[in-house]
């Protein structure tokens, strides 16, 4: 039945992930966990989404654009992976989501938007590429401002310097990762053998940190050295719920081959031709100037 399909508009994928945005990624993961019949659109026209944000879920006549709202809506429709949690576990899930929002989010945003390298090489090009034409002039900027506000206004007051906030958000984020790692322990998922909404949200944040071509940074390093179980958790979810389809795999391999060929000398042919033309011109000019070649203009005698 077409009516029963949930339409989901998300930011497109990157780095082998189905989406590059943590919220979209969390929603997609949740839908996969619970087998929601979902149709994914990678159309991110902010005028069509009611709040201008993504993910944007549309089911029958109802639209939702916030992760927690989408989860609770899906839960009400009896689609969900949280039904086998005990009451106490559900309470824990609520608390840990709050922990992530308060502790991890500011540091995460700081890494993607405030670190100059990441911003110019990864974040900005991604949003420029993903946003359709007229919007790309202001949408990335808007996200930037929002991230800045969340970090600097949400965290501190006027008595605290920016540098102190920078250290604080990273320290908080690393603490949060450690807490999550302790909570996960050596289980497969946070609450036993079945994935839950908390797993989806954690995956949304951790997967981009581990998969994007980021420079050496505090958060990724912290996960790799101190929270190895989070790393495994993320890889498991990716392997089990988001395996690359055959076409994607082929495309990836093709891209890889092209890249290895190209990366060493990206414009090999063009450069060779240019160099050849340049050398030839230089030699001919030299020959002319020194009189090795000379052109004599012989006026053809009129046959008549």
């Amino acid at each position, binding site marked *: 039945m077409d009516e029963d399909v949930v339409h989901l508009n998300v930011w497109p994928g990157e780095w082998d992930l189905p989406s590059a945005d943590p919220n979209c990624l969390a929603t997609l993961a949740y839908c996969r966990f619970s087998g929601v019949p979902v149709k994914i659109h990678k159309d991110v026209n902010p005028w069509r989404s009611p709040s201008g944000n993504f993910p944007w879920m549309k089911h029958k006549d109802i639209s939702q654009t916030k992760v927690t709202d989408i989860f609770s809506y899906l839960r009400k429709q009896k689609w969900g992976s949280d039904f086998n949690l005990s*009451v*106490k576990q559900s309470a824990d899930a609520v*608390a840990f989501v709050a922990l992530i929002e308060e502790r991890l989010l500011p540091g995460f945003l700081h890494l993607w938007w405030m670190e100059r390298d990441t911003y110019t090489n990864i974040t900005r090009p991604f949003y420029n590429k993903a946003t359709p034409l007229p919007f790309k002039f202001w949408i990335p900027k808007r996200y930037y401002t929002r991230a800045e506000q*969340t970090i600097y206004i949400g965290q501190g007051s006027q*008595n605290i310097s920016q540098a102190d906030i920078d250290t604080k958000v990273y320290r908080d984020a690393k603490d949060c990762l450690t807490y999550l790692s302790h909570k996960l322990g050596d289980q497969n998922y946070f609450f036993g053998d079945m994935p839950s909404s908390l797993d989806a949200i954690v995956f949304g944040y951790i997967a981009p940190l581990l998969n994007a071509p980021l420079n050496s940074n505090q958060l990724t390093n912290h996960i790799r050295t101190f929270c190895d179980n989070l790393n495994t958790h993320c890889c498991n979810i990716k392997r089990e719920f988001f395996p690359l389809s055959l076409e994607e795999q082929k495309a990836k391999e093709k891209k890889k081959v092209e890249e290895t060929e190209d990366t060493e000398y990206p414009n090999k042919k063009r450069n060779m031709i240019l160099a050849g033309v340049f050398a030839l011109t230089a030699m001919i000019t030299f020959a002319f100037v020194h009189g090795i070649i000379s052109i004599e203009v012989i006026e053809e005698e009129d046959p008549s």
Partner: protein
Amino acid sequence: MTSMLMEAVKIELGATERWPDNVKLYQQYQVEQITFPDYAACLSVKTFLHMCGLQFTTELKVNAEEMSPSGRVPFIQLGPFLVSEMEPIIACVKTRGFQLCSELTDIHKSEMKAYMALIGNTLVNAEHYLAWFNKDVFDEVTKPRYGSMYPWPLDGILPYMKQREVRKRLASLEWTEKSFEEVCEEVLTCCQALSERLDKQDYFFGKKPTELDAMVFGHLFTLLTTDLPNREFALIIQKFDNLVNFCQRIDQKYYKNLNNDY
């Protein structure tokens, strides 16, 4: 601020006595001035210090907010150091060798931090929302109290400046877009989670109090006992019997022998 301060405190550790006699906790005037979100924060810290069995005196200052190194109350003066807000105070007290959660496992510690974040993320924002953006509460309670210690015309101007600051902060956390009903729903979810976690235990993590207990008491007790024109939050909390009993128990245990000097 806090980070640099904490380093300094760590260096100082061991050099001086563990807990000097003249520790002071600063806050605004309790009866006339303090607004209830600030009061909840102060009560949390005080309860925490009582639970640790530490002595301190409360100093009432009109400009406590401006005196605080982070711009928020409460803050404590410990020897030459000023430490403000709950988390840094807990960390600072820990460096002096007092800790409530030393017996907890790593998982329980993580869970405790998660519930503390839940309160910070939900209840604190909801309190600010109610105090500064609910028209009745702002006009009848928050505005007169916040301006009460200042002469005309400051008593009219300062509350609006503070309101603007709070709005900016809540907007950055996307709380200003919420309607009052949505905020109530957030509070309900938060209380539900707390109530389920507490269940029938004495404290959140077994037989001994932790800083989470101090924080929960500080916020819930304030919301339950403050007389506001809008009692919506108190009504929500009263739906959960175990939380109400929990507040009464802590009140009995820590404040009765202080003659209810909160």
